[in-house]
């Protein structure tokens, strides 16, 4: 019974977050200076008579009080209608449907690869604490972290697309190429390789640093000493005793990052001409394309909330201490993830 109440309470929390986010998504773009006229009409819009400019603003409903506009937006949203982009001249849902798969195709593997590589290197560094390996890795990872993503991406382009033309400069997957054929998979992966590598490297440091410090903490525990004393193979000590316990903060980091992954690749998408959600949002901000912004922000909101929900649900799986119903430690359930 109390479990059901817990689920309902959680659902209520998410609902509240979603409602607040919807309002913010609607209000914030409208608070920015400037109107969307140029996005609707083009550069020459400035030369239209004021009456005509007002007429266009009226036609898209921006002359109404913001509450009325919000009501209309919610009404349409309830019918699954995200509106019509001022700047693209197309339905918002069409554009998002086109972009989202490509964003996911690039960003999810890159997020996983960052995490995997970061954890692997972090473990290695922690095990060899203060050795040359540790210091070398630390320097390398921090060095890569210090490079802005656009610089890293451009360098990869210069090296691997221009100097040694192994990969195309433009990662824009040509029209008609899908993942349904062997040729298509080849074509797509060839184009994704460099942005994937850039994003993977750019996202490495937090995982590396978190894993390293978390591992250092765990490796100092008595049970590690115990495990080694009883003759456990090193590999088993690292994997089963140390890493499993050290992974908890890493998984928190991963699920938090996952939500932001969708919008976080503006720079990389621009450098590699990859039409993803980040670039879409950036262009929409510049054009003051409110319907498009509301659409992409909605997707990001759902992603962040979804990733948090996922973290909440998977925590007990990762950490037995958090499983509900265990006697004596039930209070821990009430503690949300750090």
């Amino acid at each position, binding site marked *: 019974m109390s479990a059901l109440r817990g689920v309902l309470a959680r659902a209520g929390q998410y609902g509240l977050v979603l409602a607040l986010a919807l309002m913010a998504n609607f209000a914030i773009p409208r608070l*920015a*200076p*400037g*109107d969307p*006229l140029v996005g*609707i*009409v*083009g*550069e*020459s*819009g*400035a*030369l239209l*008579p*004021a009456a*005509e*400019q007002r007429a*266009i603003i009226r*036609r*898209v409903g921006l002359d109404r009080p913001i509450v009325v506009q919000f009501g209309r937006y919610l009404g349409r949203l309830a019918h699954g209608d995200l*509106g019509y982009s*001022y700047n693209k*001249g197309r339905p918002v849902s069409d554009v998002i449907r086109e972009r989202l798969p490509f964003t996911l195709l690039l960003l999810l*593997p890159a997020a996983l690869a960052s995490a*995997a*590589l970061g*954890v*692997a*290197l972090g*473990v*290695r560094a922690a*095990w060899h604490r203060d050795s040359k390996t540790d210091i070398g890795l630390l320097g390398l990872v921090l060095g890569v972290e210090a490079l802005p993503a656009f610089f890293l991406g*451009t360098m990869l382009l210069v090296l691997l697309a*221009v*100097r040694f*033309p*192994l990969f*195309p*400069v*433009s990662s824009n997957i*040509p*029209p008609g190429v899908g993942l349904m054929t062997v040729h298509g998979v*080849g*074509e797509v*992966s*060839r*184009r*994704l*390789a460099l942005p*994937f*590598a850039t994003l*993977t490297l750019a996202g490495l440091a937090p995982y590396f640093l978190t894993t390293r410090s978390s591992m250092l903490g765990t490796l100092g525990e008595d049970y590690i000493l115990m495990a080694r004393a009883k003759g456990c193979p*090193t*590999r088993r000590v*690292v994997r089963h005793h140390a890493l499993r316990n050290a992974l908890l903060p890493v998984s928190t980091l991963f699920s938090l990052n996952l939500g932001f992954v969708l919008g976080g690749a503006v720079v990389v998408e*621009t*450098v590699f*001409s990859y*039409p993803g959600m980040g670039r879409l949002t950036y262009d929409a901000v*510049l054009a003051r394309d409110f319907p498009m912004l509301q659409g992409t922000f909605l997707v990001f909101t759902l992603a962040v909330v979804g990733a948090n929900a996922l973290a909440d649900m998977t925590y007990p799986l990762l950490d037995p201490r958090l499983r509900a119903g265990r006697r004596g430690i039930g209070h821990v359930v009430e503690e949300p993830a750090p």
Partner: protein
Amino acid sequence: MAGGIRRFGVRPAVAACVALLSGITPIGSAAAQQSPLVRIAITQNDKNWTPYTYQTGDPGYNVLTLLYDTLLWHDKDNNLIPWLAKDYKISADGRTVDVTLRDNVKWSDGQAMTADDVKFTYDYILEFNHGRFSPEVNGVLASTVVNGPDKVSFNLKTPFAPFLTAPLADVPIMPKHVWENIREVYPSVKGEQGLAIGTGPYKMVEYTPDKQYRLVANPDYFMGKPAAAEIDLQIIPDSTAQVLALRAGEVDAMAANLAPELVKELATAPGLNVLTGPGYTSSALTFNVTRPPFDSVRFRQAVANAIDVDGLVAQVLQGVGVAGSPGYVHPDNPFYKKGLRHEFNLVKANATLDEIGYRNKDSDGIRKSDAGKRLEFEILASSASPIEVRTAEVVGTMLAKAGIKTSVTALTGAAKAARTGGFGGQTPDRDFDMQMTGLTAPAQDDPDRLRTALETWTPAAPNLNSGKWSNPQFDAALQAESTELDPVKRMAVINQMQDIIANDRPNVVLYYRNGGYGVRPAAYANWVYVRGKGIVDKVSFVAPQSPSGTNPTAAAPSTSKSGGSGRGAVVAVVVVLALVAGGALTLRARGRRVEKE
């Protein structure tokens, strides 16, 4: 590609390995007579590229003219020539323009183009306001009359000297059968849907948003078969990536003007060339004359005297440009007033500021008025243009020498417009001291177009006069030149206009950037640089051709085609796998080693 590798000094064996790995084979090909495909990098979508949906002046309008035709057009020296019109005649009183159209011109959907379409287009731009085309006919064009399937007469309210330049050589003729049912021209609010339909040398056959447009040649084009069978416009938003794509052979030309520092570099790159020439596009520092002290002519003159426009060309443009003329008109333009030069004179600037009451200086050298108000201002620049921001900063260091302190604020388009009154609909107020402005090249073919930037601003007919400078003499001169049909008398009035601007200083014209367009001659050799404009122009594809390029380099005719995507894909997959598996492997190796210990 082979050239590219040599350039970087990699040994042939390594080069061969790379070629093998990437599956790209160097192809030495002689330049073909008719190019099968020209790939041009552009930065953004312009929707379906119709007269009412294109977004930018450059490259938006320029690409539009590959799909649509105007009654007149220009040759490579920017002289007007008949185009869709076979012939035209201006009546003695200047109030009637008779146009005879070419025979057998067809729309890209196969229907015949007739005089009805011409009348329809001009009626349409009078009825449905278009920011660029409607001001060219509003108050000028009384009626358009069809006198036969190939004859149209334009009846003007008054004689209008620039009528041939604009609208006739500017307004694209639109198909009546497509547009007559479109009564709402702006999305969302929908314009013409589907692909653009025009009479131009190219026909749009495919549009994939945010990826590319495919244009194929119209083989029956009335000016001759276009020299490239297909043009692909590829969307590459980042300018650095565009340059890299050009180097890697993924595109054959860039529609955008190159940054000055790249002109030399690309011109000497193997297989590439840069086509350069004068660009009429101007860059100016505009004063908000509604805000003191910019309401004082002498103050504006002092600011102008403190700016070294030649220094800007050298420092910011690295010499790839022409110093601004105070009369706004480019010195290569036939309408330029001979001898009109910007005066950089710091002594005079300081003397003027002393005289008009900014004698006192703070300890940091900044002048202040007798009331104690410091000469400290903000310059707005567009964050989308690094050159503009840099220019504003260099201008700031120049003004500092006259005791005027400035700070540069870079804003995005909409945010800047909100403060400069760019869009009269919601934001008519001017909230700035000085801002960086510019007029694109076509807006300066005829000095009459200066009315866009400098005629007195009114809410009913807003223009780009963001500083709200208003000079009755200038407005009268505009009126006089526009109705003066005698070229000599008209030139006298235009000279007078340039003097007024130079003395009354609504702005300081800083420079005109030269055009510099990166191309791959092996892919397409017929590029033509249209004076003052650039290379993305139908003259590059259909007009009588002259050898292209003002900067011929011994370009080895080498192209690289991505023929072996299969092998490239294998490499890609290997790299990806290596990255992902790297972690696991390290861990494993580590584990094994420790076990041995």
